């Protein structure tokens, strides 16, 4: 049985490919009719071939479980997602604007604290934040940039507009899968490239990343030594760490490979010690240096923080940058943009309620079964409450938590995420998606064309995290040919 768009129905949700049963949106028409031109067997063959390619290419991620850590094949649905070039150009500007403002904010927080003195952001919100690092006060990193790599989570609402769901300024991951998804799609649907669509390429991300990282080097040398610092093979994003190192031609180092002498960082090589200029660290702040942060950390390097503070090595992202990706600070980002850039935000936030505010908290507690509640600084979808899907017991538990620690919680209405078709075993069906583009800022800034689309593979589900059964899609930014 061939794909039948007439029986495809996303109900009340905004579908990005099919506007109403049987009708594809304009940019998606060629994709929709191409999919329809294939027999069921041909489509299933392509699906199997893509799965096999992912397995032999070794595109994997690690799942933690009681039975140990398992290296799993990366889940990808073969039907691509489409975004038009003009829509993306605007979104891309919004992302750059946002990161620029956030970097001004972080720099201000660790230096003059003007925004606190002007009472735009309440001072105690910062001082109580789990991501504020007082050790960073007074630090002035190159270009005054702290968050060099940002993964911004976007969703599309019922109106088909992008909204910012959260900013990930610590160690956002997923970009390697964005690049690899494209590689798999090229193998799967070579017919669609060039002939039908002009698709913006994503493969140069590692080169852009290397340029940005190199621009951070304290030493003025032609080829600064750039390394990727990984917690090691058991980390869920290890594939990505090694992938990026390989594609950049940088060394992939673990804590034990580095040593600090005279506030300079060196790596142990077969030829002895060799100085390091820039560290793209994929380890959380708390673990980078046992002398300053978590004393039990074996992942980090003793003395690293001081080497950074003395300006002998660059860290990307800088320690303390996470102060701006706290979910409470998120609600202030529109004001932050106005304050530093004197511009209106190009991208909107999802409306949010702060539990620390008495009136808003009251609203949250009264409507808990309709809202999504998020803790200030968890990631990966952990510690969240999805009100409409929660049990009475879970609701009661969150009511207690919010009252006990209001600073740590914010709530948002359950936004209807847009849908795109996935290829099931029998038919194509709508599933909810989000999008994580990656934004770079160093001496200049850069946004990936598209990003990583994550898709909730379970019908009706909003949970897109790969650690919790989510999948992914190749994302095409298409220009009119």
């Amino acid at each position: 049985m061939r794909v039948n768009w007439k029986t495809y129905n996303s109900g009340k949700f905004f579908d990005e490919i099919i506007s109403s049963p049987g009708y594809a949106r304009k940019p998606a028409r060629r994709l929709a009719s191409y999919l329809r031109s294939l027999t069921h067997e041909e489509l299933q063959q392509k699906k199997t071939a893509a799965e096999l390619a992912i397995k032999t290419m070794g595109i994997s991620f690690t799942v933690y479980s009681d039975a140990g850590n398992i290296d799993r094949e990366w889940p990808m649905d073969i039907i691509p997602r489409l975004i038009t070039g003009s829509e993306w150009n605007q979104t891309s500007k919004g992302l750059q604007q946002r990161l620029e403002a956030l970097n001004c904010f972080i720099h201000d927080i660790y230096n003059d604290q003007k925004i606190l003195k002007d009472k735009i952001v309440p001072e105690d919100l910062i001082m109580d934040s789990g991501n504020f690092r007082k050790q960073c006060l007074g630090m002035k990193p190159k270009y005054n940039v702290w968050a060099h790599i940002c993964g911004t989570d976007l969703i599309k609402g019922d109106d088909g507009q992008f909204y910012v769901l959260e900013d990930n300024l610590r160690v956002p991951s997923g970009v390697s899968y964005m690049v690899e998804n494209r590689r798999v799609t090229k193998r799967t649907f070579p017919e669609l490239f060039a002939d039908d669509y002009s698709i913006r390429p994503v493969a140069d991300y590692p080169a852009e990343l290397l340029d940005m990282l190199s621009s951070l080097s304290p030493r003025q040398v032609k080829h600064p030594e750039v390394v990727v610092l990984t917690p090691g093979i058991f980390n869920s994003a290890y594939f990505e760490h090694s992938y990026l190192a390989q594609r950049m031609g940088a060394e992939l180092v673990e804590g034990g490979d580095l040593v600090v002498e005279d506030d300079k960082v060196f790596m142990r090589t077969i030829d002895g010690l060799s100085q390091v200029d820039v560290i793209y660290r994929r380890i959380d702040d708390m673990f980078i240096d046992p002398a300053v942060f978590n004393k039990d950390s074996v992942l980090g390097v003793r003395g690293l923080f001081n080497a950074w503070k003395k300006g002998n090595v660059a860290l990307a992202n800088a320690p303390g940058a996470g102060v701006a990706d706290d979910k409470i600070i998120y609600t202030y980002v529109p004001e932050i943009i106005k304050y530093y850039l004197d511009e209106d935000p190009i991208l909107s936030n999802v409306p949010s309620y702060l539990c620390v505010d008495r009136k808003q908290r009251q609203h949250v507690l009264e409507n808990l079964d309709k809202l999504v509640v998020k803790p200030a600084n968890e990631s990966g979808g952990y510690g969240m409450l999805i009100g409409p899907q929660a049990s009475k017991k879970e609701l009661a538990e969150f009511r207690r938590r919010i009252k006990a620690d209001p600073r740590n919680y914010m709530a948002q209405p359950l936004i209807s995420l847009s849908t795109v078709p996935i290829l099931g075993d029998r038919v194509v069906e709508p599933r909810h998606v989000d999008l994580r583009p990656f934004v770079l800022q160093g001496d200049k800034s850069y946004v990936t064309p598209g990003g990583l689309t994550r898709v909730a593979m379970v019908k009706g589900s909003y949970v897109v995290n790969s650690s919790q059964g989510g999948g992914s899609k190749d994302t095409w930014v298409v220009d009119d040919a």
Partner: protein
Amino acid sequence: MLLSRVAERVYWQARYLERAENVARLLHVFSALQLDLPKGTKLGWQTLVQITGHEEQFVEKYKQENERNVVRFLLAERNGISLVDMLAFARENARTTREIMPTEAFELINGLYYFARDNAEAGISRAERNEILDQIVSRSQQIGGLMAGTMSRDEAYSFVRLGRSLERADMTTRIVDVDSQKLMPELEVEDAEPEAREPYENILWMNVLRSSSAYQMYRQHVRERINGEDVVRFLLQNEQLPRSAAHNLTTMTKVLRNLPNSNKVNWQVNKTRKLVRDADVNRLLRRGLVRHLDSVQKEIAQVHFKIADTWFLPGNS
């Protein structure tokens, strides 16, 4: 600039890969040898376990040293010794050095591991064993070829070659260590006449050569009919044969020129090389071959320790 840790993983990845290939070759040859023996005669499969040096682990687990048990033990069992586990280790080392190896190399190693994992169990019975082992050997060769054809001749590649050469030299000294008396004990009992054993001795040596892909080369180089003395000399001392002990030790001395601080390792490799090349095989075959090979293997082990000492241990500044 090669990290010490990465150098170590690249080196072990090459060793594990080579070891897996060698085990596949050995199993292949023994399976063929079995078919050449008179009906009802059983091959001494325990010899294979001895060659790989894991008698203790084998005896702990199995009562009978028969074909099925030995093949299971060396091919499919997840015991940290079997071919499948060698490939699992090779893959793990490749996975943790992906940033410096050619992408295709990882993909091939990864594919080979999955192939072996999914097919090893079927290889325990004779019907499919040859096909599976052939695939493993030829895919290993493909990986070596890909690396040779795509990798820069940098330090990482030097460690690939060091690992591979050392493993080959080691395995070849183990293979020539086979004892025909133990391998074909029943022939001994059935017929005490030495002449009756002779055709089987020849088959044995022929298969020993085959296990190293050296049969044709032997024919071209030696031109003698196959006999133990020439085979042992050929496999140990011939400089041209790519799987001979001498050739691989010589290769190592060349590779070492590209690596920093290689004096101690070089000294040890040359010591081992001299021991191999200067041996009087004719005399050793009459007496003392086993002891000689033991001491060669000990020297080879020393080469490894010197390599680890020089480049892998942290704090080598």
